[in-house]
């Protein structure tokens, strides 16, 4: 039976509509995965020597064991946000004669070969080899590595239990916070004893039974949980329906004929996971400036990297949200295209939204004047450049968007909707302002370089109506492709 389910999965992977289309992104992801593996392997191979150097008085294996305590906790946190139980078209399988138990076993086993569990192996195996080279007892090392692999799997199954309720999550977070505080203030050393436990797994090979026992315990707990709630209206397969409050945003009415769209966009952003994350990310990125403006390796007040930071932090929302512009509305694009509105009004509402975001982010960045007037000026100029050059450039590139976006999926590691436009964006967004500024700053002066960027933005703003009416024509031409593209799931 497993074989048949596997066949289904295989087909669903290779026959999915965007399999060939997203090949560039898949290659990029593959590179990223290889990069991670190499990093982990290097870390594994080197860990013994690092620890021997860092803490010469302690057995390096013991030092690594203590670090692993923190790794496992961090792993659990990352899993909570990023790892979900592998989806399978369970609804279709529920009514055909496959045993429920088989499906659940399959789902659970499939989860244990996820990247979260495979990548740690790239650390553990080289580390084990390093131990063997250094003359640690062979049996003990083998069983220690086995124990660690099993513990990674234990984490895997703990995660699904935690995922069921936020209570567990807050429990883990507060436990972690307490540990860190206790450790930090030296009240009680928590990490070392747990590290010692891991170390004892090396000393006594038969202790491997403990992680194995835990694994069985958590596997069975998960299995029972899923078996109980393997119904459409319960647990894994259903989504909770929330009671919601209507909201009006009357203050937006002053934007005239595009007000209804702006209100809609604000609802879109607050009520859907993925766009909401882009807002939170944009606000968090405001702090990114600190990294650039306080660190002298990026040069003193007014370097090329500062231009990058200024454009980046004031335009973060514009880039993050703007890059997918018509695609956010992909689920109901047909409605918008057959309603009593012109493409011009529609695009204009998006443009106003992006301009508003640049205004707000620029205002919020003003405290960076603290780091000198040059940096302050760059932020203001960055805002103007974003508004004048980047917004039209971005909207033009958006006319190539024809990939659907599901609003309710998380934004983390989500490449849905990505296409060539997202890569081309980098040129006007970042390379041009950095290049122009760098060159003129080098040849003439900071003031002239800033002035030129400001003028570029100013020219864009002065001709915005002309540029905009051309954009509308481009969008009208591409509309039909969008209609088809946005329908494809």
């Amino acid at each position, binding site marked *: 039976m497993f074989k048949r389910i596997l066949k289904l999965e295989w087909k669903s992977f290779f026959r999915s509509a965007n399999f060939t289309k997203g090949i560039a992104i898949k290659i990029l992801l593959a590179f990223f995965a290889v990069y991670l593996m190499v990093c982990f392997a290097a870390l594994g191979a080197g860990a013994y020597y690092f620890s021997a150097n860092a803490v010469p008085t302690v057995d390096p294996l013991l030092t690594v064991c203590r670090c692993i305590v923190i790794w496992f906790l961090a792993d659990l946190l990352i899993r909570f946000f990023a790892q979900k139980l592998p989806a399978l078209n369970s609804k279709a399988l529920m009514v055909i004669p496959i045993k429920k138990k088989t499906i659940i076993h399959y789902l659970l086993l499939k989860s244990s070969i996820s990247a979260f569990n495979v990548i740690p192996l790239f650390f553990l195996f080289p580390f084990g080899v390093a131990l063997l080279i250094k003359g640690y007892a062979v049996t003990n090392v083998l069983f220690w590595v086995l124990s660690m692999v099993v513990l990674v799997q234990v984490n895997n199954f703990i995660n699904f239990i935690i995922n069921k309720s936020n209570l567990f999550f807050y429990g883990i977070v507060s436990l972690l916070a307490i540990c860190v505080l206790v450790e930090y203030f030296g009240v009680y050393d928590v990490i070392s004893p747990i590290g010692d436990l891991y170390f004892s797994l090396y000393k006594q090979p038969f202790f491997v039974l403990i992680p194995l026992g835990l694994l069985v315990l958590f596997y069975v707990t998960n299995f029972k949980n899923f078996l109980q709630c393997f119904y459409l209206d319960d647990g894994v397969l259903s989504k909770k329906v*929330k009671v919601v409050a*209507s909201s009006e945003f009357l203050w937006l009415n002053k934007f005239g004929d595009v007000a*209804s769209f702006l209100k809609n966009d604000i609802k879109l952003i607050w009520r859907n996971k993925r766009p909401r994350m882009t807002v939170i990310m944009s606000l968090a990125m405001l702090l990114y400036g600190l990294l650039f403006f306080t660190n002298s390796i990026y040069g003193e007040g007014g370097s090329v990297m500062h231009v990058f930071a200024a454009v980046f932090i004031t335009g973060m929302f514009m880039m993050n949200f703007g890059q997918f512009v018509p695609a956010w509305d992909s689920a109901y694009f047909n*409605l918008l295209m057959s309603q009593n*509105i012109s493409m011009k009004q529609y695009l204009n509402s998006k443009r106003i939204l992006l301009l508003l975001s640049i205004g707000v982010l620029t205002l919020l960045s003003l405290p960076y004047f603290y780091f000198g007037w040059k940096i302050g000026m760059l932020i203001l100029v960055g805002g103007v450049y974003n508004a004048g050059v980047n917004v039209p450039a971005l909207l033009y590139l958006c006319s190539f968007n024809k990939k659907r976006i599901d609003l309710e999926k998380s934004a983390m590691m989500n490449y849905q909707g990505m296409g060539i436009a997202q890569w081309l964006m980098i040129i006007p967004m970042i390379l041009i302002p950095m290049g122009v500024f760098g060159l003129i700053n080098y040849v003439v002066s900071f003031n002239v370089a800033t002035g030129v960027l400001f003028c570029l933005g100013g020219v864009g703003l002065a001709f915005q109506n002309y540029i905009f009416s051309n954009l509308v024509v481009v969008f009208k031409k591409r509309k039909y492709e969008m209609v088809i593209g946005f329908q494809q799931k």
Partner: protein
Amino acid sequence: MIVSENITKIYNNNTVLEIEKFEIKKGQSIGLVGNNGAGKTTFFSLLLDLIRPTTGTIKNNGIIVSESDSWKNFTSSFIDESFLIGYLTPEEYFYFIGELRGQNKADVEALVSQFSDFFHDEIIGKKKYLRDLSKGNQKKVGIVAALIGNPEVVILDEPFANLDPTTQIRLKEIIKELTQNKAVTVLVSSHDLSHVTDVSDRIVVLEKGRIVKDLETNAATLTDLEMYFSN
């Protein structure tokens, strides 16, 4: 009201629609029937300028739909769930459509309140997003939204499918009321022959993209259609 000339739509050498001349007079209610793949939805999509015809033009009240947007002022439609905004409550969705069609909140509320029995207390004031409603209730919202703003042309693709019997009967009354003054042109497609003959004064049968029958509705139409489709 609607004139289509030499319309064809070809996908990869596969002709899905080929209609030489098709004219709908103002105030007519047209029922479009045909088996799956006959081209009903393709025709509606062409009419709404969501896809482009391979050849030919469609005029809606004298306006070529692919050249100007102004037909949208008086045309409204509900084709499928891609016409619903999932993250709005039904009320918000009605107000949104109302705003686009120049109706204020009070206008929209007045219109929507006429449909309280159609909604059967399952839609208004439930504080749920559209995406959390059942398929049938979503459909009701879409159909009522297509009636906002006194449209002169109303296009409904398979409005009877997925609805319960009470609602189907109520929907027939709604469509009949809409057309009784001969001011609103209604286009309805359906697989339910009896419903569609009930509400339309002209039935057009499509088969493999061509019009094979074009009948004024009378007492014998339903039997005619049943005969036709059973062969």
